[in-house]
């Protein structure tokens, strides 16, 4: 059949494809150098899917600090250029993105804002390349505690599972004694973090309050939408308290569904990851009296510096910072300071400048409100960990009690020795 139109649909498709290819080749591929003079920082993170909030809040924190640094003249006129890319939470993709940063973009440092699985992949890439890497999200203790995984050029600026476990158990033990919370249940996501966090919490709780009994444990799949099975188990067992390390949308779904069964009238919830604005604001009618660690709230630490940080961030982005924001903010602050101190992007010099360094911080509870990158395992300590109870409105958490870092360090040491890591 003779074509009536001069151009067929197929011709149009072919032309579009060719134009797209030329455009692609001229603009993006390969991802090679753009501005030679800038200090380049590669940031592999998660910007898509259910935890895209992670990458967004990390990017916000970085942009806030870097804009200020660049506006103030940078490092002898050299600006910081952030290259932020999505790994889609896939470890091999995180490794590829990281290799690209190092090989093609020639970055001076990596700020790794990946979740745990992909962080271990990034760790192997930077171990081989010797590129300076600041981890700002992974809370898995072994990343920096296990000597076989540790490397000279990697520093952790995120909170750590073992620190939270000790803090949580110390707080919970006080209530065990005050209220007689003997019967416990747990609900945690069915993967390494969930199981490790739950086990470490109960190990520590037994130390502080011997005689506590675990009457049931629920292990829903990560990102599971329905928690009825575990909730009915809770209703049946009637525990005095529930420990949960669910996080994000999973925790929101669990709390929303548990409210329907009046679960928290008989059992007190200790949810380690609840007190973060994105989580609390997503819960319909946040109940009074749920216990949580302060992931990030403007009310804790109760200092002007922290309130100023929250205000600066909220003014810029129209949303509160998250736990991931403060961790990243501290990391970029340390890196900028190391750049200024050494006047160089030499990774060895920067690593030396970071090691053992104590700096004043809005999240610091060390001497003079400081945090420290510990010398031996290159990990952040003396950051604020508080536990309190929820209220439905701002400031969302009240009666916050500070966790004692001396106890954390003492029990962490004991735990590391038991693991054979010290």
């Amino acid at each position, binding site marked *: 059949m003779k074509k009536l139109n001069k151009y067929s649909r197929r011709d149009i498709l072919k032309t579009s494809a060719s134009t797209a290819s030329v455009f692609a080749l001229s603009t993006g591929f*390969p991802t*090679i150098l753009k501005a030679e003079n800038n200090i380049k920082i590669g940031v592999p993170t998660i910007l898509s899917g259910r935890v895209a909030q992670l990458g967004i809040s990390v990017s916000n924190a970085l942009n806030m600090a870097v804009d200020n640094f660049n506006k103030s003249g940078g490092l002898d006129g050299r600006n910081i250029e952030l290259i932020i890319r999505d790994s889609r939470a896939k470890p091999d993709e995180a490794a590829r993105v990281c290799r690209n940063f190092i090989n093609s973009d020639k970055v001076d440092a990596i700020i790794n804002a990946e979740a745990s699985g992909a962080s*271990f992949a990034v760790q*192997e890439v930077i171990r*081989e390349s010797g590129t300076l890497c600041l981890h700002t999200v992974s809370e898995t203790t072994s990343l920096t505690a*296990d000597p076989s995984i540790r490397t000279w050029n990697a520093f952790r600026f995120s909170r750590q599972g073992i620190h939270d476990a000790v803090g949580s158990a110390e707080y919970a033990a006080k209530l065990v004694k005050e209220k007689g919370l003997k019967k416990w249940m747990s609900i945690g996501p069915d993967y390494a973090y969930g199981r490790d966090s739950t086990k470490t919490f109960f190990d520590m709780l037994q130390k502080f309050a011997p005689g506590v009994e675990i009457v049931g444990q629920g292990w829903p799949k990560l990102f599971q939408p329905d928690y009825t099975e575990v909730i009915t188990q809770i209703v049946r067992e009637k525990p005095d308290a529930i420990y949960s390390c669910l996080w994000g949308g999973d925790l929101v779904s669990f709390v929303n569904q548990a409210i329907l069964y009046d679960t928290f009238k008989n059992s007190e919830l200790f949810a380690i990851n609840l007190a973060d604005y994105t989580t609390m604001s997503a819960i319909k009618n946040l109940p009074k009296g749920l216990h949580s660690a302060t992931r990030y709230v403007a009310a804790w630490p109760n200092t002007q510096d922290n309130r100023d940080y929250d205000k600066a961030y909220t003014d810029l982005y129209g949303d509160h910072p998250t736990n991931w924001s403060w961790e990243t903010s501290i990391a970029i602050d340390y890196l900028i300071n190391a750049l200024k101190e050494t006047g160089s992007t030499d990774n060895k010099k920067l690593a030396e400048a970071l090691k053992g360094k104590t700096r004043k911080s809005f999240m610091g509870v060390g001497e003079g409100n400081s945090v420290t990158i510990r010398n031996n395992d290159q990990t952040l300590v003396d950051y604020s960990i508080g536990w309190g109870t929820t209220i439905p409105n701002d400031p969302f958490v009240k009666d916050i009690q500070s966790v004692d870092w001396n106890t954390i360090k003492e029990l962490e040491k004991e735990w590391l020795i038991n693991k054979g890591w010290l």
Partner: protein
Amino acid sequence: MNLLKKDNFQRDVFLGLLVWFMLIIFYYILPDPGIHDIIQKVFILGLFAMSLNILIGYLGLIAFGHAAFFASGAYTLGLFLQSDFVLNLAGFSIPVAIVLAVLVSSILATLIGVICIRLKDIYFSFLTLAFQMLIYSIILALVNITGGDQGLMGGFPKPPFLGIDLGKPFDFYAFTIFISIITIVLLRQLIESPFGYGLRMIRDNSERPAALGFNNQKHKLIAFIIAGSIAGLAGSLQALLDVGAYPEWAFWSKSAEPLFMILLGGMHSFLGPLMGALIFEILNDFVTANTRYYGLVLGLVILCFVLGLKKGLLDWLLIKLNRK
């Protein structure tokens, strides 16, 4: 020698070595490690996709669980190189690890294949998927061995062998491409052999070869094992590149990747999946560097191929060339 003959082994070896040699020259002409990284991954993922295409393109069986073999190859290599055997074998560790990875994947493919090839169509597809998810769950459950959901941690050594140090970028680049090309040449021989044509006969009309005395089940099983073994080889090379192995490599979404590559490159031309891997990797590099809407862009591109070309790119090109 008849150069036009499809199964001309010498010609294929010559062409393979020529391509390898040209890519070595390319390495020096364009010393951008980012591009070298893409080329390496194209060959690794190309092997993975070509292995799946033995089942899809030549046998007409759509396997949804092919990543199980990719992951088994990766974990076998990683676990072996993390073990104390490395101390004893030293220089032979990596060749032995690769051979073991292929062997373990082939054994796994035999066990799974014996059950799966009894079924066809959607039942075959979903049974392969079920086995893959079983492997995935085992990887997650054996935390002390596999590292669970965090993957093999702590890296592993890459002891030099026969003067090849895979810790050096050039050596790794040349080695990966060499192994891939050799495998592709051997696979070509297989596909153009009577065995390969037997697979096509089963695909087109399974009753006819059976009537001619063919043992269809045996043919299918051998094809399944070969496909699994090559996927295991690809997985072992990927593990060497990333110095680790991750449970995501055994997840169902990983099995979708070679399917996309076959769709993009073409399932009816031998090198179609390799071209698909090239398109896939370039897209991956370009899209992740410029936008966060990876799924949207990949979906649109596949839509263009499916609706516009109605076939993979190499299939389309070959048809165009043959017409001329």
